[in-house]
């Protein structure tokens, strides 16, 4: 018998869904999610999250302001906004800390927009040396000094990537989470910036 079935349509397969990599253990994420949910119900329950992240957020802000009082004020603002926006927080496969750092980065940027002051960038010589190693350049004082000069030419978005990667030693995954981009995009962009910096360094020499 000839096939009785005559296929008129074929299945359009759904693309496989993206599976997020876990930045922390599932257990820790679940535990933290429970805390976030509790805080979403009741702001007073935000305390453990505040206690856990206050210092790292403060340091993040201080490195960009170099002013303890200002860092304290901005930090308060970061957490105030976090509580206010907590109901809208949805876990995007990234740790809660990345969400806080994103708010902090926005607060710092807003502060500099409003005050028209010069943005502070904190770095250690060892961080600059690491960068020079990455670019396969000498890390003597002259080169380090030149590096700060070429860093000064970067636009603020590029500078943020360098800052997080080399001055704060953050993994690309976390940088991507904070800046809301893919991990590979963060990597590609960072190495392109390094290439540009290297060219500028050579020209400067």
């Amino acid at each position, binding site marked *: *018998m000839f*096939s*009785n*079935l*005559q*296929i*008129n*349509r074929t*299945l*359009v397969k759904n693309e*496989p*869904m*993206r*599976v997020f990599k*876990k930045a922390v253990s*599932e257990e820790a994420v*679940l535990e933290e*999610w429970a805390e976030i*949910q*509790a805080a979403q*119900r*009741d*702001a*007073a*329950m*935000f*305390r453990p999250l*505040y*206690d856990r992240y*206050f210092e790292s957020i*403060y*340091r993040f802000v*201080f490195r960009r302001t*170099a002013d*303890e009082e200002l860092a*304290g004020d901005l930090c*308060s603002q970061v957490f*105030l906004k976090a*509580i*206010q926006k907590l*109901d809208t927080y949805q*876990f*995007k*496969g990234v740790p809660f800390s990345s969400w806080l750092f994103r708010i902090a980065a926005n607060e710092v940027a807003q502060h500099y927009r409003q005050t028209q002051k*010069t*943005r*502070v*960038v*904190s*770095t*250690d*010589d060892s961080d*600059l040396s690491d960068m020079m190693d990455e670019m396969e350049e000498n890390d003597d004082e002259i080169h*380090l000094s030149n590096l*700060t*000069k070429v*860093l*000064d*030419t*970067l636009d603020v978005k590029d500078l943020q990537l360098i800052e997080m990667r080399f001055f704060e030693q953050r993994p690309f995954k976390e940088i991507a989470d904070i800046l809301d981009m893919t991990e590979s995009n963060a990597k590609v962009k960072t190495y392109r910036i390094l290439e540009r910096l290297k060219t500028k360094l050579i020209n400067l020499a």
Partner: protein
Amino acid sequence: MSNNYNILRNHKQPSSEDIAKHKDFDALLAKYQTTAQPNQKRQGAIVRRLAYVATAIAAAAASIVLIINFLNPQDLHKATQEEYFAQLPLVNPPIEQVKPTFTKQIVDVNAGGTFKTGKGARIVVPTQAFMNDRGELIEGEVNLHYRALSDHVDFFLAGVPMTYDSLGKHYQLESAGIIELFAEQNGAPVQIAPNKAIEVELVAEIYLPDGNEAPKFNIYKLDTTAREWVSQDVKNIQSIEDIANASQNINNNNPVNALRSEYASDLAAIETAAAERLRAIEVSVPAPAEPIKPTQSNSQRPSFELKFDDGSVIIEDDPNTPEDENEFLKQQYKGTLWQIAANTTYDERDFQIKWDVFHLRKLNNRDYEITATKGNRSIKWIVNPVLTGAPYQRALAQYEQDYAAWQQQMNARDAQLKEERDALQTDIKQQKAALRKQFETKLASLGVKTDDLLTKKRVINRFEINNLGLWACDRIIPAVEQQLQGKLEDQFGNEYEQQVAYLVNKKHNTIYRYYVSKNNPIRFDEQSDNLLWVVTSDNKIAVLKPTDFKKVASQKQKKTVKVNLLDQPIQKEEDARAVLSWQ
């Protein structure tokens, strides 16, 4: 080179101690509360409620002062019920280690499933029901966590609020069941996908006075931001069943029982007769068959044709099939596309097989079951007849004509039957009213009110939810007015002031929470059995059972209300159930 940035090399970083000086969560929380917008009413509810008592500007200023005072323990006695509970977590389990637990169910998103809870609730999860927060459908397995709450012990242990505010008034909610659900995949929360819904069936037991109409429950969702239950525009199908051998007679009086039995039997007889008369009315003018709307084929689902002219298709269980079957089939299904129904799984490779025979079985107006057989192997698909292109357009136009005609016929039929239906309703109502009056009179002669006679009923509500969270099947009930006079005190002389007391009455499946202080009397329904308790800091319960409650409530001008402090702390749900039973 210009200085775009102030690049600081080796700038001294603050120590952890330095940083800790800037840390002040309480100040942050107070700031949050004072700046909270109306739609950010988690802790801000205190501000919102206090604002009722003064003008806008004065209230704003006063609120800040009152909040500061209110947080001061010495001033707690001044707090109203609303102020006190507004500063607590919205869902506030009184005994942390005895919270009703969540059941975790692993759901294969391609299969969905039906899951039951220990409380008789049921959850039906369709396939492809979940999405992540970017709106992408989730593949693989999802962990669904749920818990159902059905009675006063559950509501108490879960710490769910049971009040409802509307237009500045506070009401109490009676519940026919509450369910809380959340889902996650690898720890990341997921939500219900658009156009998908989880079906929920909640079961609860309520007490109804004899002969009373079953109350109608509605669907509410807990808005954790606004800190209130919000009525949902969700349809629910409700049914109420008698619970065999569960009738409770407070007086346990035989003549009363006999009367109740007689009344129930007479009532059932009226209803049976009414149903029969209604059926007779309906069949006196037969209803025309509703035309079936054609379905357009969906390019996302596989579809195929069946050849009816070679005898390889057999139609089963269709009494309408005429003797000349092949001819009928040709006419009926010629050119029909059969589309694999949504939720039906299939293997594409099966479409390449030359099957020997197909059995077609009509399941309903839309679904057919096809069994394809080759040798010893057979598979089943659920399919829908669909049309495409011009045949679909023609069929749709025909359907619209047929439907309009059908509606006209139905309207004419309804008009023809209306008078008889209305007359029947009036007659039944009168019969029931007469029977009720007779029953009440007989009861009165025995010194009993109908409100005292409660029958336990099982209420089942079925509805669909399109997002996760806390859902309830509730109804607003009248406030209780009677005040309980006197201080709460246990047998050891411990007074229970400035703490939460819980009260339930047998008439309503709810729990009343009172912040006990001079300004906040405990209120109760004197027409019902009442159960009152408080929880001590070491998780013991001091309770006033219904019989004792009745005695205490009847005493005038009493100074203390003696509650019985139990020896053992509550360590598990069973402990609470034993203590908080009606016996």
